[in-house]
C-alpha cells in the first residue's frame, strides 16, 4: 500500500477543533488503548505546520510497555528507539511503525468523538482497498459497496483495533470480497467500460485492450477465490510476497504457489487468443 498512501496532512480536516486533553504526552485514549508515544504534542490535524506523520524528532521517551503494546518491541529498531537517545546517530526509520503510530493517533481522536477524522483513514487506504475489491469482484459498483460496508464495519469496531489498522481493515475488505464471491456464483464478470478512462491512442489498440480487459476478467472469474486473491494482490496491487504473507497470515511459499497456479490457469485460458 506504500505507494498509495496519502500523507495525512494532504487530507483536509473537516473537524478542526483540537483536543485540549491531548495537548501533551500521549497516553491512553478513550478506549483505554495505549499508544506509542506521540512524537510531538498532538497538533490539530488541519495544521500545516506540524504534520502528523512528520519524522519523529522530538518524541517523548517510549516506555518498554508502550513499545510492546504497539508491537514494536521485537521488531527492528524504530525512530521511537532513536527518540529515546537523542544523542545517538539517526537510526533507520521504520515507515510501518510511523504509519502505525499515525493511524493510532487518528483512531484515538475518532474514539474521542472526532467522528470526521475517520475520513483521514478512508483517504489513506481507500484507493488500495478499492483496487483489491475491484480485482476480486470485477464490478466497480460492487467494489464501492464493499468498501462502504467495510469502512462502516471498521468504524463500528474501531475500538477493537490492535496493531496495524491497514492490515485489519484489509482483512475486513478481503473477507467481504470472498463472501461476495461465495454468494454470487457468476460465470463471468465484466467491467463497465464506460467507467474506464482510456489512455490508448488508436481505435484498434483500444479495441484490443478492452477485449483483453474483458477476457482477463472472465478468466479471473474462473479461478478459486484464494488463487484469484493472490494473483490480484501480486499483479494488480503490486505487493511483495512478504507483504501479502503479512496481510493474509500465511507463508511466502504458499502464496508463491497460489500465484504460480493462478498464472498457469490464466495462461491456458488466454494463450490461444493473445500469445504471439
Amino acid at each position, binding site marked *: 500500500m506504500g505507494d498509495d498512501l496519502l500523507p495525512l496532512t494532504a487530507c483536509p480536516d473537516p473537524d478542526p477543533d483540537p483536543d485540549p486533553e491531548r495537548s501533551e504526552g500521549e497516553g491512553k485514549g478513550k478506549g483505554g488503548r495505549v499508544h506509542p508515544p506521540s512524537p510531538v504534542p498532538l497538533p490539530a490535524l488541519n495544521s500545516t505546520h506540524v504534520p502528523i506523520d512528520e519524522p519523529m524528532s522530538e518524541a517523548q521517551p517510549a516506555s518498554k510497555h508502550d513499545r510492546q503494546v504497539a508491537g514494536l518491541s521485537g521488531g527492528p529498531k524504530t525512530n521511537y528507539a532513536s527518540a529515546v537517545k537523542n544523542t545517538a546517530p539517526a537510526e533507520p526509520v521504520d515507515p510501518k511503525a510511523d504509519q502505525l503510530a499515525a493511524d493510532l493517533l487518528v483512531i484515538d481522536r475518532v474514539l474521542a468523538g472526532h*467522528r470526521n477524522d475517520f475520513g483521514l483513514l*478512508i483517504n489513506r487506504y481507500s484507493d488500495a482497498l478499492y483496487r483489491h475489491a475491484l480485482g476480486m469482484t470485477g464490478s466497480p459498483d460492487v467494489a464501492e459497496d464493499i468498501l462502504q460496508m467495510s469502512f462502516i464495519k471498521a468504524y463500528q469496531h474501531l475500538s477493537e483495533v490492535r496493531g496495524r489498522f491497514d492490515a485489519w481493515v484489509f482483512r475486513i475488505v478481503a473477507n467481504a470480497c470472498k463472501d461476495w464471491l461465495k454468494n454470487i456464483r457468476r460465470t463471468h464478470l465484466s467491467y463497465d467500460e464506460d467507467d474506464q478512462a482510456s489512455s490508448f491512442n488508436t481505435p484498434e489498440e483500444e479495441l484490443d485492450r478492452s477485449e483483453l480487459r474483458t477476457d482477463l476478467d472472465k478468466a479471473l472469474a474462473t479461478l478459486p477465490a484464494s488463487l484469484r486473491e493472490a494473483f490480484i494482490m501480486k499483479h494488480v496491487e503490486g505487493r511483495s510476497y512478504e507483504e501479502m504473507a503479512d496481510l493474509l497470515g500465511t507463508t511466502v511459499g504458499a502464496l508463491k504457489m497460489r500465484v504460480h497456479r493462478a498464472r498457469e490457469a490464466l495462461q491456458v485460458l488466454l494463450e490461444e487468443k493473445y500469445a504471439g
Partner: protein
Amino acid sequence: MMRDERDDQVVRRGTYALHAWLDGDGSEWAARRAAAPGAREVELWKRVEAEAARRRSEHAPEGLRARILAALPAEPSQPAPPRPRESSRRSKRLPRS
C-alpha cells in the same frame, strides 16, 4: 535421455524462468531464452502486465469518502471492559495444612 524427458526439462526450465521474471527475480531476457520458440507466453504476460499496470492506477470513486462519512453511525462502539486475568478468575485454594 528420451526425447519426452528432454522436452519436459525444457518446459520446466521455461516455466521456472517465466515465473522468476514475473516475480521480479529474473530478467525478461532469461524468460525469453528459456521459453518455447517464439516466446509466446512472454508476449502474453507482457500484455497482461500492461493491463495490470493500468488497473494499478485506478482510484476509489470521487465522493466515496463523503458517502461513507454520511453513512457512519453516530458513534463507534466503545471497547468492552477488560477481561479479568486468568489468575484472578481461578478459585483460590487454600493450602492444606
